[in-house]
């Protein structure tokens, strides 16, 4: 067992831990989206990935447009506050991307099951919706005490979990705070993990609504200031709403997207 997270450059972490064909989750719910890590996957031309994310936003539009993904497991794919993800939309409409579609509650519970070492989670959900007709990972389950019918969703089988955090200490203890979504579950539910951080500090101190991932459950920590841009990192920088709007233009036009990709 490892005792400390290894601190390395992001390029090394991605090269060492992410293999073609892996199931990879990049999480961050509006806040702390690991955009730099996603772009490193593109630069290293990772292929055939099963990409997992509750809210595939522009970083997944980029990964999908760049041809990294074979399959997407998700619950809401859009450019928040702007509109569509055009590369994602084009890939789905062209039948080029396999999708496995859930609700947020379903995805959140799939992460919880993974972090808990359970094969599935139980919830109330999906009843009466069209999702179970198209998503095989939704099944019904009966309460052994009351006989009530509920819904089961399977654990996500994550090879690599990638998140961005505000900071880590030199032993690799990671700290993030504010709205922290499913990031804890993403790291705890994956076989290997990469955490990019705004900065590495000598000592962590208390922060409101802070999540600490201890050094021994994180594989790699990489110092990447601004690694969540254009999303935000509370205490470091705000969301760049202009960049989210600008992405709409780039993503809408295949030629413009290719030029963006070329320049990456």
């Amino acid at each position, binding site marked *: 067992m490892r005792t400390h997270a290894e601190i390395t450059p992001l390029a090394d972490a991605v090269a060492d831990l992410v293999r073609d064909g892996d199931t990879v989750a990049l999480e961050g719910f*509006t806040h702390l989206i690991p955009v730099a890590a996603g772009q490193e996957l593109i630069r290293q031309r990772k292929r055939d990935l099963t990409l997992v994310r509750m809210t595939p936003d522009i970083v997944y539009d980029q990964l999908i447009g760049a041809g990294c993904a074979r399959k997407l497991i998700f619950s809401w794919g859009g450019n928040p506050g702007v509109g*569509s993800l055009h590369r994602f939309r084009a890939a789905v*409409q062209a039948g080029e991307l396999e999708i496995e579609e859930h609700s*947020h509650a379903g995805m*959140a519970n799939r992460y919880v099951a993974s972090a808990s070492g359970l094969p599935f989670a139980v919830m109330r959900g999906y009843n009466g919706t*069209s*999702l179970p007709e198209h998503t095989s990972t939704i099944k019904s389950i009966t309460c052994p005490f009351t006989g009530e019918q509920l819904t089961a969703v399977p654990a996500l089988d994550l090879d690599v979990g990638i998140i961005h955090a505000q900071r880590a200490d030199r032993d690799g203890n990671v700290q993030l705070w504010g709205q922290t979504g499913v990031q804890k579950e993403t790291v705890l539910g994956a076989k290997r993990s990469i955490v990019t951080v705004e900065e590495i500090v000598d000592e962590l101190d208390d922060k409101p*609504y802070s999540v600490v991932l201890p050094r021994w459950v994180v594989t790699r920590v990489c110092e990447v200031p601004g690694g969540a841009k254009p999303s935000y990192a509370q205490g470091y920088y705000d*969301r760049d709403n202009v960049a989210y709007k600008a992405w709409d233009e780039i993503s809408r036009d295949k030629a413009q997207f290719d030029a963006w990709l070329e320049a990456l």
Partner: protein
Amino acid sequence: MAGGAVTAYEADEMMTVEAARRLRDTTACFVGIGLPSTGANLARRTHNPDLVLVYEAGAIGAKPPSLPLSIGDGMLGETADTIASVPEIFNYWVQPGRIEIGFLGAAQLDRYANINTTVVGDYANPKVRLPGAGGAPEIAASCGEVVIIVRQSPRAFVEQVDFITSVGHGDGAGARERLGLRGKGPTKVITDLGILEPDPETRELTLTHLHPGVTAEQAREATGWDLKLADDLQTTEPPTEEELKALRELLAA
């Protein structure tokens, strides 16, 4: 309205003001982004300063100083009474029915208030791929009741949705009970033209209010099914000066 000058206002403003009024006596409201968020934030500034706004990214009791552009904006967490993880939001707060009203939007809506935000056309060969479910299915299932805020058009108000992302009243009376859904489901659909409510017997959406200046014919033309009108079709109170002022300040902030 009675006497005095009537301030000019847009149809979207009428819709948002009316949405805010629905939260007058509400403790907690689950807020989707866009029009629902505007309506809920307006309510907190006007009729119900104690209204608890819950956002799916984790903020409970958010008091944003301006309209957030995303459901996880920093201002939501920073002003919240508390922050929950996303699993906790759905498992501890939405699922047990702890939240009185869910405020949702829709891309397509059918006569039983079932919502589609997933796909137009065939699922495997979509005409238009929409963002998908997000938090809506469980909000629609488990919140005490649901208010839908959506602009009315034949493209949006369809005979049958191409995909049921979130269940309204299913195929009509008794459907929610048969499906084991514990919330009441959609009790109001507030549009730019008026208000639709499920018929107490059949659960079919029926036009109960027209906004001032809108005709029943306009509402029927903007609806993809043969829209029924309530026997006592009423006219919505137009926005008050105070409501409009608060809304415009909110949108400008």
